[in-house]
C-alpha cells in the first residue's frame, strides 16, 4: 500500500522500503523542501544518511549517526492485513494459468515441467481448511477488519508470521483473538512494541502452546507482563533479544517445558536463579550467552539442589565454560538426563574423548551427552578411568585405601565431588594401578648392580649399571674384559636382598638379566 494517503497513527509503524525494514519516527514537513516527508529509522544502522537531524534541526532521534533517512510516503510500503497476505499466498489470483497442468517455467534454456500444481492450488484456495500456514516475509502489518480472519481461516493451528511488519503486541492480540485453535505462533524478527496497558482478552491464546519471539526486541519484563495471557504455554523461544532476566515469574509461565534464551549476551549466572523454580521446566537452552559458570549454593557437595527441579536437558553450547567446577555443579541437579556442551573452551582441543569420559563420570545420572546416548559400558569405563586418573592426586590430598585413614582435603573433594562415591562403588584404587608407567628410556631400563668376585682372596666389589635386556653372554664378555679372565671360564649367579641366602645361577648365556628376574640393587656373583 504505497500512496499519499497515510494511515492514522503512522509514528511507530513498521514499514518496508525497497526491501529494507524501518520504523517511522517522524511525519511532517522538512523545510525548505516542499511536501510531506516521513522520517524513518532503519533496522540496518548504516543504511541511512543522518541521525534524524537536518541542517541543524532535530526532527527525530536515531540510535546511530547514519540510522535515519527522510523518504516520501509514496515510496513506503505500510504492509497489508493478514487476510490479504493469506489470500495472496494461498490462492493464485491473476497468475492462474488457463492450461492447468503444464506451467511454463524456464530454467536457463530448459523447460520445467510441473506436476500437481493445479490440484494444490485448488486445495489451498479452500482457505478455511488451512491449519498450518506460513506468512513469513509477506509484509503483514495488521489484523485487518474485525472478524475477517475468523471468517477466512478459523481453523489455523500453526502460523509463521516471522519477518513481517507488525509493530505492536496489540496487533498480535487482534490476530490471535480470531484464531481460536492457535497452538503455534512465530513472530520472529518483528520489532514489536509492548504497550504497558496491553490487555489480553480472556480466551485469546487459550490454546497457545509454542511461541517464538526471536529477535523481536522483547524485554523480560514484557514477557512476564504478556505471559498472563498464555495459560498453557509449553515452549517459549526468546533468542537474540538482549534479554536480562530481571524478575522471577510468579504466576506465569508455570506450564512452560522448554525455554530458549540463546544468544542473549546480557544473561548472567545470577539471573538464572530467578527462573530456577519454574515447576515444569524440562529443557533449558542457554547457547551462546557467554556463560562461564553455574552454581547451586543451596546444596553442599554431593547433595541435590532444589533449583530447576524438572530440568532434564540442558544445552550450553558455544559458551565460555572453561572450568570443571561447572560440570561438578550439574551433578547437583535432580532430574538432569541430557547435556549438550560443545564448543566451550573446556571441551575444545585434542582431548575430546577424554573430556567426554570425565563429564560422564562427574555427572552420575547423565544418559545422553552431546546427543549421543551413554551406554552402561561407556559409563562403567568412564568411571573406572576417572578413579584411576585422579588416584595419585587423591592420595597426595590425603586419600587412603584404609577407610580410617582416608581423609582427602576439602579442596580435593570440591574438585572431585564424586570421587569418594566411585571408590565405594569400585573399591579404592590400588597402588599398582596408580603407578605411572615409566616412559621407555634406556636409563629407566638400567639396573644398578653390585658385582662381587668371590673366587679370590680379595673380595672385590664393583657397582655397574646394566640394561635388563643384556644377555648373560654379554655380561660375561664385559666382565671378561674387566677381570682379564676368558669368557668360557666365567660362572655367574646372583643374589638378591629380597631373598637372603639364596643364590640363583645364570646358566643360559642366551637369556637376559630380565629373564632371571634380576632387579635393581641385586648382586652378581662371579666365579672362575
Amino acid at each position: 500500500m504505497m500512496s499519499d494517503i497515510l494511515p492514522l497513527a503512522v509514528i511507530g509503524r513498521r514499514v518496508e522500503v525497497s526491501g529494507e525494514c524501518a520504523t517511522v519516527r517522524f511525519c511532517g514537513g522538512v523545510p525548505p523542501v516542499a511536501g510531506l516527508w516521513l522520517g524513518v529509522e532503519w533496522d540496518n544502522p548504516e543504511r541511512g544518511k543522518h541521525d534524524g537531524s537536518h541542517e541543524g534541526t532535530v526532527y527525530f532521534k536515531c540510535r546511530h549517526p547514519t540510522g535515519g533517512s527522510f523518504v516520501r510516503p509514496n515510496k513506503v510500503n505500510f504492509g497489508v492485513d493478514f487476510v490479504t497476505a493469506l489470500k495472496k499466498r494461498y490462492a493464485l489470483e491473476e497468475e492462474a494459468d488457463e492450461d492447468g497442468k503444464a506451467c511454463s517455467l524456464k530454467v536457463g534454456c530448459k523447460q520445467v515441467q510441473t506436476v500437481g500444481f493445479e490440484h494444490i492450488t485448488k486445495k489451498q484456495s479452500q482457505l478455511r481448511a488451512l491449519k498450518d500456514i506460513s506468512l513469513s516475509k509477506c509484509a503483514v502489518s495488521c489484523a485487518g477488519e474485525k472478524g475477517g480472519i475468523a471468517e477466512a481461516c478459523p481453523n489455523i493451528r500453526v502460523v509463521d508470521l516471522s519477518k513481517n511488519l507488525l509493530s505492536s503486541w496489540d496487533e498480535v492480540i487482534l490476530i490471535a483473538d480470531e484464531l481460536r485453535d492457535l497452538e503455534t505462533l512465530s513472530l520472529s524478527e518483528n520489532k514489536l512494541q509492548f504497550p504497558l496497558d496491553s490487555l489480553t482478552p480472556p480466551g485469546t491464546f487459550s490454546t497457545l502452546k509454542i511461541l517464538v519471539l526471536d529477535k523481536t526486541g522483547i524485554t523480560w519484563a514484557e514477557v512476564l507482563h504478556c505471559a498472563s495471557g498464555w495459560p498453557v504455554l509449553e515452549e517459549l523461544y526468546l533468542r537474540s533479544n538482549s534479554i536480562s532476566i530481571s524478575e522471577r515469574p510468579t504466576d506465569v509461565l508455570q506450564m512452560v517445558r522448554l525455554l530458549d534464551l540463546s544468544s542473549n549476551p546480557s544473561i548472567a549466572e545470577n539471573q538464572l536463579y530467578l527462573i530456577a523454580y519454574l515447576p515444569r521446566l524440562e529443557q533449558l537452552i542457554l547457547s551462546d550467552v557467554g556463560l562461564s559458570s553455574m552454581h547451586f549454593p543451596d546444596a553442599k557437595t554431593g547433595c541435590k539442589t532444589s533449583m530447576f527441579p524438572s530440568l532434564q536437558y540442558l544445552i550450553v553450547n558455544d559458551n565460555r565454560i572453561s572450568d570443571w567446577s561447572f560440570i561438578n555443579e550439574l551433578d547437583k541437579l535432580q532430574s538432569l538426563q541430557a547435556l549438550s556442551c560443545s564448543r566451550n573452551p573446556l571441551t575444545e582441543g585434542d582431548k575430546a574423548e577424554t573430556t567426554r569420559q570425565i563429564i560422564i563420570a562427574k555427572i552420575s545420572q547423565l544418559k545422553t551427552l552431546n546427543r549421543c546416548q551413554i551406554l552402561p559400558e561407556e559409563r562403567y569405563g568412564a568411571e573406572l578411568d576417572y578413579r584411576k586418573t585422579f588416584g595419585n592426586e587423591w592420595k597426595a590430598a590425603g586419600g587412603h585405601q584404609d577407610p580410617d585413614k582416608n581423609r582427602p582435603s576439602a579442596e580435593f573433594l570440591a574438585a572431585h565431588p564424586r570421587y569418594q562415591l566411585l571408590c565405594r562403588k569400585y573399591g579404592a584404587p590400588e597402588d599398582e594401578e596408580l603407578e605411572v608407567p615409566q616412559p621407555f628410556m634406556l636409563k629407566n631400563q638400567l639396573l644398578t648392580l653390585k658385582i662381587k668376585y668371590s673366587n679370590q682372596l680379595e673380595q672385590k666389589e664393583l657397582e655397574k649399571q646394566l640394561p635388563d635386556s643384556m644377555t648373560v653372554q654379554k655380561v660375561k664378555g664385559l666382565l671378561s674384559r674387566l677381570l682379564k679372565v676368558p669368557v668360557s671360564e666365567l660362572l655367574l649367579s646372583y643374589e638378591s636382598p629380597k631373598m637372603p641366602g639364596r643364590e640363583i645361577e645364570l646358566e643360559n648365556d642366551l637369556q637376559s638379566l630380565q629373564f632371571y628376574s634380576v632387579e635393581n640393587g641385586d648382586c652378581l656373583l662371579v666365579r672362575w
Partner: protein
Amino acid sequence: MLQCLSIHIGQAGVQIGDASWELYCLEHGIQPDGFILDRQQEQLENGEMEPRNASFDTFFHETRTGKYVPRALFMDLEPTVIDRIRVGKYHSLFHPEQLVNGKEDASNNYARGHYSVGSEIIELVLERIQKLAEQCNELQGFLVFRSFGGGTGSGFTSLLMEQLSAEYCRKTKLEFSVYPSPRISTAVVEPYNAVLTTHSTIEHSDCTFMVDNEALYNICHRKLGIECPTYASINRLTAQVLSCLTASLRFEGPLNVGLIEFQTNLVPYPRVHFPITTLAPIISADKAYHEHLSVPDITAACFEFSNQLVRCDPRLGKYMACCLLYRGDVVPKDVNVAIASMKSRTSVQFVDWCPTGFKVGINHQPPMVMPGGDLAPVQRAVCMLSNTTAIVEAWARLDHKFDLMFAKKAFLHWYITEGMEQGEFTEAREDLAALEKDYEEVG
C-alpha cells in the same frame, strides 16, 4: 489404486526399513499394534478427516479387523537383525510371515548370498512375496532396500531381482541402496560385492537411488550436532528421505503421476539409472524454530554439497535430470520464485541433449519427525533426486579398489569355494568399466 511392495534385504535393508515404517506409522497415525488412533478413526468415519489418509492403501493393507499391515517383506540370511524387529516396538505391526530369516549368514560374501546360502531360501522368499502380491489389487512395483557391500545385500538381492524380473516382468523395480563409503568401510571385500552386484542387478533394476554412510555421518555430526552418530541416527535420517520420496504415493495428491513417472523422467538410458539423493532442510532439534526457511532457501540448499546423501561433487559433472519433491507448506508461486533464482546459477550445468531439465512435484502433507529424535520439526521440506554424470567418480573409486585387490587375487578364494568362477569377476569388472564409459558418453 496402485500398490507398492517394499522388500528389505540384509542388515542395512532391514534396519532402514525399521526406521522408515516407524515414521510412516507416525505420519498415518497408525499405532504400533497396527490400528489407527481412535480420534482419527472417528474422523475418518465421520468424513471430517481430510481424504489424504485414505490413499495409504498403496503401502498398507487393511485387514478385516481394521488393522493396517505394511506391504513389506523383511529378510536376512541370519536371525539377529530380524529378531530385533520381532521383539521391538513394532513387532505386532507385521505378520510373522513377513519376517524371513535363514540360519547361516552370508559372511560379507556375495557368493554365499547369491549361490550357496541364498539359493536355499529364495523359494521361500518368492513364495512370501507372491502372497503379498496377491493382497494387492494392482501391484505397481517393488521397492528394494539393501546395501552394496554386505553379503546378503549384494548377493541375495541380485538373485532375487533376477527372479522377480522373470515372475513379475512388467512391474517396476526401484532400489534404494547403501553405497560403500569412500573413506569408511565396514568390510574389506566391499568393492568385490559392490561390483558383482551392480553387474548382476543393473538390467533388472529400473532406478537405483543411492545413499552412502559417510555423507550421512557427516550430516549427523555437523548439522545435527551428534558427537558420535550411530546407525540409529543415520537410519532415521534415511527414513526422512524415503518419506519424502514416497509421500506422493501415500497421501492423496497427484497420485498416478507419482514416483513411477519421476523415475521415467530421471533415467535417460536403461543403464544410467543411479540418481543421488539430497534432503533439505536438515536442522538439529536443538535449533527448532530458529530458522524460517522459505522454499527458495531449501531449494538452494539442495544444490549444496553438504546436504547430499552421497559423497560426490556434482560440480564436476553435468545434470541429466533433476526431480524436486516438495512437501508441506509449499505454494506453486514459491516454487516458481525458487526455480527462477536457481536459473542464474552457473554451477547447475545440464547436458545439452536433455530438453526437460527439472521435474517438480508438491505434496501438501507436512514432514513429521520422530518425537525425541535429532531433527527439528519443519513446515516444509524437499527431496531432490538428481541424475548427474558426476557419480562416475563414485564408480571409478569403487573400480579402483576392486582392481587393487583383484590384481593380487586377494580374498578371491572365499568366493571360489562357494562356487563362483574368476571369470565372473572379470565380466563384472568389464561391465562396470562399460558403465563408466556410458556416463562419459552421455556427459
